[in-house]
């Protein structure tokens, strides 16, 4: 389908319709919405430009829950509709476009504006504005200026500019990008490589996917600049095969860049050759780890190897290699075109720039957000996120994905940056941010995260392979009401040793969710083990079902649902649960229409 549909007819000056066609938008039916706009406008003979906007479920919007989002822009004035379906299109066209009266009841509400206005969008703004399948659109917003400028400089000058920006790797560890490039540049060895890490294996993380889907050329440009800086003539994008749309857009972008001589021999009419290959990852989380990733590109099983030697001296095929995350690289063109100093005006002195987070969990506004580093956690949760769902109270925020840690509500004023997060026992990780309220059981939550890392361990080293398995088993028994007296100590002992003794970052961080929840919510573990109670009423086996006399309306649905005859009930009598017979299956809880089962 063509990206732009030009329609002939009576002129409505400067009319543009932007429809969100990201993964989220597509799922919500944006294709049908576009077709309907097309049909309606055509039938009315109106000429307009329909742009597939945003192309990912976040970029411009972030408001995943409100797709399909549509901008109607007349004379430069945008009005944004939410929850648009094909059958709403006719009214929008008739009232808004023909009569000039926006359909007020379908426009986005104030949360939408809060959500956007409080963010600082450097990367995501571009993502939303341009057609990712058209290199001209990127060039129109000064795309590839940074690369052109860099190639006219000495590689060390490029490195210096990036160093000046203070850019730290967005892949999790926050290593200074300028320093990494300098190490790689100075390492003896030929050829050298630059790799873009687009493996993004954390459950719930999709910032890198969004960037590639929304603005693949920024990543390519970042790689050209990085490749030139470190002295590489070949780059790889290691991207998970589960991202077909991102892969497709990347391929289109690479082809377009080659046609323009932005990739290939003597690019930008310089003496520099550079090209990029795509390597599909098979979906192993550990393949995001630098050494495992390189082995995987080499065609071997993705096993991490100990460092030293570091990848910058002995990386892919044993040659000096710079590995950078998608978001890191997407920042680079901006740094080169607008200057490192400009970049450093965002964020704080040691944590410059912005970071994209995936805000999820029990928060009102979920989605991808971009904020300056160092922003207080509170602002993210309450100003951008709109606070906790159902106005419950905040319990904790988990950052850093499955190997991150928990930040209790009492630390809500802390700044969100690399150093503060690791100081509190969590980490930046890929930028996951899960909000939890009083209905979240911290033991259950850490069990969930550990189950992920345990199953994704590569199996190479003992502490991670068997240690996380044993920790998981202990958590399982605690949540099932079989916890033992010394289980908390055992978890701490195992967790500490696994962190110390594991080979790679996966094992070294896997115990974080458990250790940090024990640190801040030890009493919840104790309640499970010693009192047989799950304070958040999440762990099924620890629930004690009772019927509330107050709420019971004597309908008998629970009586009929119970598979173990534990409920006594007769017509016009309140139900009573016999704890000795109850098997805690929860069937009565699900069956009660009046929430009378507690």
């Amino acid at each position, binding site marked *: 389908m063509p990206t732009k549909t030009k329609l002939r007819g009576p002129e409505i000056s400067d009319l543009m319709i932007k429809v969100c066609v990201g993964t989220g938008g597509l799922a919500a039916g944006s294709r049908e919405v576009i077709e309907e706009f097309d049909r309606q406008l055509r039938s009315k003979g109106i000429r307009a430009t329909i742009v597939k906007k945003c192309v990912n479920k976040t970029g411009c919007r972030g408001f995943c829950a409100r797709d399909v989002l549509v901008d109607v822009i007349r004379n430069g004035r945008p009005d944004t509709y939410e929850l648009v379906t094909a059958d709403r299109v006719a009214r929008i066209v008739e009232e808004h476009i023909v009569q000039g009266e926006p359909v007020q009841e379908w426009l986005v509400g104030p949360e939408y504006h809060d959500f956007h206005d409080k963010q600082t969008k450097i990367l995501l703004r571009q993502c939303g504005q341009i057609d990712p399948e058209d290199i001209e659109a990127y060039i129109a917003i000064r795309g590839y200026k940074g690369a052109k400028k860099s190639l006219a400089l000495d590689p060390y000058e490029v490195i210096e500019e990036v160093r000046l920006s203070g850019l730290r790797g967005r892949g999790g560890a926050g290593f200074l990008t300028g320093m990494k490039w300098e190490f790689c540049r100075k390492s003896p060895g030929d050829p050298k490589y630059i790799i873009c890490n687009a493996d993004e294996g954390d459950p719930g993380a999709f910032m890198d996917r969004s960037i590639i889907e929304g603005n693949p050329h920024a990543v390519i440009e970042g790689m050209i600049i990085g490749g030139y800086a470190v002295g590489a003539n070949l780059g790889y994008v290691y991207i998970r095969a589960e991202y077909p749309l991102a892969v497709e857009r990347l391929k289109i972008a690479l082809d377009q860049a080659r046609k323009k001589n932005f990739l290939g021999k003597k690019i930008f009419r310089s003496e520099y050759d550079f090209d990029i290959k795509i390597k599909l990852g098979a979906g*192993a989380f550990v393949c995001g780890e630098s050494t495992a990733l390189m082995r995987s590109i080499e065609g071997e*099983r993705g*096993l991490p*190897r*100990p460092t*030293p030697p570091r990848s910058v001296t002995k990386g892919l095929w044993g040659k000096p290699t710079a590995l950078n995350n998608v978001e890191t690289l997407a920042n680079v063109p901006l740094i080169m075109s607008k200057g490192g100093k400009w970049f450093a005006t965002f964020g704080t002195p040691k944590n410059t720039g912005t970071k994209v987070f995936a805000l999820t969990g029990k928060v009102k506004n979920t989605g991808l957000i971009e904020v300056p580093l160092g922003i207080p956690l509170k602002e993210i949760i309450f100003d951008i996120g709109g606070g906790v769902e159902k106005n419950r109270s905040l319990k904790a925020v988990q950052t850093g994905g499955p190997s991150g840690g928990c930040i209790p509500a009492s630390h809500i004023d802390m700044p969100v940056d690399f150093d503060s997060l690791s100081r509190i026992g969590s980490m930046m990780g890929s930028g996951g941010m899960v909000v939890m309220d009083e209905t979240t059981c911290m033991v259950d939550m850490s069990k969930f995260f550990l189950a992920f890392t*345990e*199953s*994704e*361990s*590569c*199996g*190479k*080293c*003992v*502490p991670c*392979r*068997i*240690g*996380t*398995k*044993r920790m998981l*088993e202990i958590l399982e028994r605690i949540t099932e009401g079989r916890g033992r007296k010394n289980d908390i100590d*055992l978890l701490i*002992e*195992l967790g500490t*040793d696994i962190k*110390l*003794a*594991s*080979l790679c970052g996966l094992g070294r961080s896997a115990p974080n969710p458990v250790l940090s929840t024990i640190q801040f919510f030890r009493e919840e573990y104790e309640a499970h083990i010693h009192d047989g109670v799950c304070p958040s009423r999440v762990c099924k086996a620890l629930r004690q079902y009772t019927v509330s006399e107050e709420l019971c309306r004597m309908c008998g649905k629970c009586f009929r649902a119970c598979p173990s005859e534990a409920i006594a009930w007769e017509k016009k009598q309140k139900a009573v649960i016999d704890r000795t017979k109850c098997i805690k299956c929860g069937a009565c809880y699900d069956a009660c229409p009046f929430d009378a089962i507690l």
Partner: protein
Amino acid sequence: MADRIIKIKINSKEISCKHHETVLHAAKRAGIYIPTLCDDDRLEAYGGCRLCLVHVKGVPRPLPACTTPVADRMEVTTETDSIRKIRKNIIELLLSNHPNDCMRCEATGDCTLQDLSYEYGADGTRFAGEKWDLPIREDNPFITYDPNKCILCGRCTRICNEVVMAGTISLTGRGFNAMPDTSFGQPRSLKNCEFCGQCVSTCPTGALTDKKGKGKGRAYELTKVRTTCSYCGTGCNFDLNVKDGRVVKVTSAYDAPVNHGNLCVKGRYGYDFIHSFERIRKPLVRKGDKFKEVSWDEALEYVAQKFKSLLKKYGPSAVGAFSSSRCTNEENFLISKLVRTVFRSNNVDNCARV
């Protein structure tokens, strides 16, 4: 740069090291013990078992000795309370997924895991949980593979890929379910395996054992007799393991100058001939159409006489020697010397053909 001498201290003992040497290697040379399960001198350093963690002054986290290169003035401590505790926990974790049936295990007395659990007083009870219960693999003529005893040190897979380059086995699966196996779990067979037994030779536990030696004697009952392989001229050494005057198996001689413990299928498993009834043990001389057993002196005298008379009657060009490629280079040299200087003939050749 490459041969710059570096001085380090391990447990306060000063050691001179070569550039690029690892801490483990330096310690071994200096006779300092550091426990490990995944290290084998024949293989690239791996860093998988995490037992060789040591404390390096100024570094907050413990470092694996096997992959940490020495650095000038580095100060290493091989045993601290916290390191012993980590090691003990690692051994306990291993034992928590181990059958612990040492009493009938083929490897008893020759098992690093057993030694370590003794040394650290470790057992698997504290971390007891799910245990593997996988079928034992007896699906080939030479090698028994009991995955339940495998500790995933990766030595078998590495030796098969790095040294033998057969690529028969590799790590499969992930996390707790990772284990070394052939592709698709097929039996080791002539299609995919050399049967060199290199994997068995490197396995530190009873997971991989020689089928032929099974039940024929514990390590401490066996007398090791160093010998040179008689199958080819390479000159590999190995140890014949002898019990009650009979060879019950062959084990690697890691200090052997030629092969460093490596062997092929013939050297490791081709020892049946030693006790074969069909084996010729004395020289035989043909008398009419029968063979007669004679002494070595008698046999040599007979051959010498025959050569002498042939040389006298027909001259040097009528005689020659054809040597075997199972002989060593030295033996082949001697035979050519004999032919050229004693027989004064150039008729000398060897069966080696490519």
